[in-house]
């Protein structure tokens, strides 16, 4: 007969033997489980829903790829896709502008820390607030009014102009993004290798050639991160559109993120399947960037090991 001492001894020795192997799974399980349920599983579920015709209540009907076929003929889908492209292209401006600002501010004068924080301000504030601010800003009877009168465009409301409204929103969206890129570059500039710069200066490198040949290569990690967050930020554009125009006038400012929401969850109907198909397109576009990012991280991991 085993007495309790032996049992606990055996138990503890079993635990001791396997502790190294089991501990990571014990630590991983709560976080990983929650993440699988709320993030990973929904991705696959959405891809499945995109093959259904479903209003969220009545039984779903499997319709194969017909939602995707319908997308091909949907004018608003193309408008949204084009607008996403505009967001992507113009958003990239945030990277060089952020770099420029960072170089401009990378000095040590009295009060510069406070000034840098104030430049960073727009990023800390909610996009909803930024959207409200700019809607007010663009209002012809609002903040920009006197300026519009001055250039002879009295009463021009950019957000009501279907040709330019998207640019108005993008401009508002870039504002916090510039601040983000600026802070990434300020950190990058702080970590520059001084010896290399001095050596370059000794060799007579100055101004732009110094910048191009010595500074920019050293800023590559910052540039990489700035591009990644800017691309993802541009494809995630939802808040600004929802606040400033709700996709209008006449759908001209819609982007995929907002169009999907509108299709699936608003007064325009509860078309879950069709909405999921739009989401799947957005997801596919984003996946290229995600895989690129992960590939880069994988490379640096391999080097690290």
């Amino acid at each position, binding site marked *: 007969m085993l007495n309790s001492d032996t049992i606990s001894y055996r138990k503890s020795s079993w635990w001791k033997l396997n502790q190294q192997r089991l501990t990571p799974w014990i630590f991983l399980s709560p976080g990983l489980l929650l993440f699988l349920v709320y993030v990973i599983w929904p991705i696959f579920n959405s891809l499945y829903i995109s093959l259904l015709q479903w209003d969220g209540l009545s039984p779903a009907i499997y319709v194969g790829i017909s939602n995707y076929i319908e997308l091909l003929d949907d004018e608003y889908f193309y408008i949204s896709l084009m607008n996403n492209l505009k967001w992507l292209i113009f958003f990239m401006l945030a990277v060089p502008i952020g770099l420029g600002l960072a170089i401009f501010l990378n000095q040590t004068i009295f009060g510069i820390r406070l000034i840098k924080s104030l430049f960073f301000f727009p990023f800390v*504030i909610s996009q909803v607030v930024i959207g409200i601010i700019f809607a007010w800003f663009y*209002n012809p009877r609002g903040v920009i009014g006197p300026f519009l009168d001055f250039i002879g465009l009295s009463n021009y409301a950019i957000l009501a102009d279907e040709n330019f409204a998207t640019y108005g929103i993008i401009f508002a969206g870039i504002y916090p993004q510039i601040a983000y890129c600026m802070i990434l570059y300020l950190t990058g500039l702080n970590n520059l290798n*001084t010896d290399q710069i001095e050596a370059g200066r000794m060799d007579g490198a100055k101004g732009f050639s110094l910048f191009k040949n010595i500074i920019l290569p050293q800023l590559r990690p910052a540039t990489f991160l700035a591009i990644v967050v800017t691309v993802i930020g541009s494809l995630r554009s939802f808040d600004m559109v929802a606040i400033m125009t709700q996709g209008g006038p006449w759908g001209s400012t819609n982007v995929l993120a907002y169009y999907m929401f509108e299709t699936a969850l608003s007064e325009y109907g509860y078309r879950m399947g069709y909405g999921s198909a739009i989401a799947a397109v957005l997801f596919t576009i984003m996946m290229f960037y995600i895989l690129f990012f992960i590939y880069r991280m994988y490379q640096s991991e391999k080097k690290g090991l």
Partner: protein
Amino acid sequence: MFPIPIQKRPFINQISYRILIPISLAIWLIPLIGIMLTSIRGLGDITQGNLWGMPSEFLLFSNLKDVFQNTPMLSYIINSFKITIPTMIGAVALSCMTGFALASYKFKANLFIFFTFIAGNFVPFQILMIPVRDLTYQMGLYDTVTGLVLFHVAFQTGFCTLFMRNFIKALPNELFEAARIDGTSEFNIFFKIVLPLTRPAIAALSVLIFTFIWNDFFWATVLIQGHHAMPITAGLKSLNGQWISAYHLLSAGSIMAAIPPVIMFFLMQKHFIAGLTLGASKG
């Protein structure tokens, strides 16, 4: 240092730099200054188009009083805290554990799990929207603070794990090895050695998550319907619909929404930036 310190430049450049800085700052902040000026005005100034001149009355406090008395603003703010703080605690706690597991143990699925966290963190919200809304509904948590917090914790765990894992990985491995040889259990390594060392990372993540969640609008719209659980971002949006021309009140409300993250940023600036830049320095 790049660019060349202004102190080494001719005197005239130094002077012009110092003049240029406040001017560019003022231009940069025009939209924010505009809304602050609007929030102190009365309806009279606004309908007359007096937006940049002297306000004819100073009405900031009366505007704020209006906002708090006539709208659920106070409850929006309280809800925002009720959503933000538990999310912050939950996501940071979970990611300390996942980060530790992925940083200090070698096992087959390690990198795969790590990259799953990263990839999940970058997906567009729309691909999650319908299933997450359904799931929340089925758990009976639709339109509740708890439902929203659960999702936020899960999603933010992705980003936090990325950050924590890299942070713990950068700690000297000899510390753990020495402790193991001394017979310290794995749990004690986590609680007694790793946790105290990750304090800066915990601080950085806390401020970041606070700001992200406070500013979240999308999920608040998807998972919350009623004013009883609505955070301030969604609340502002609904006020935006009601007060088409009451921009002085909307401005006052917007400022209320902006204050907490701004304070958080100023108090914890160093940690905030360390969190955002992730490793932009080492790459």
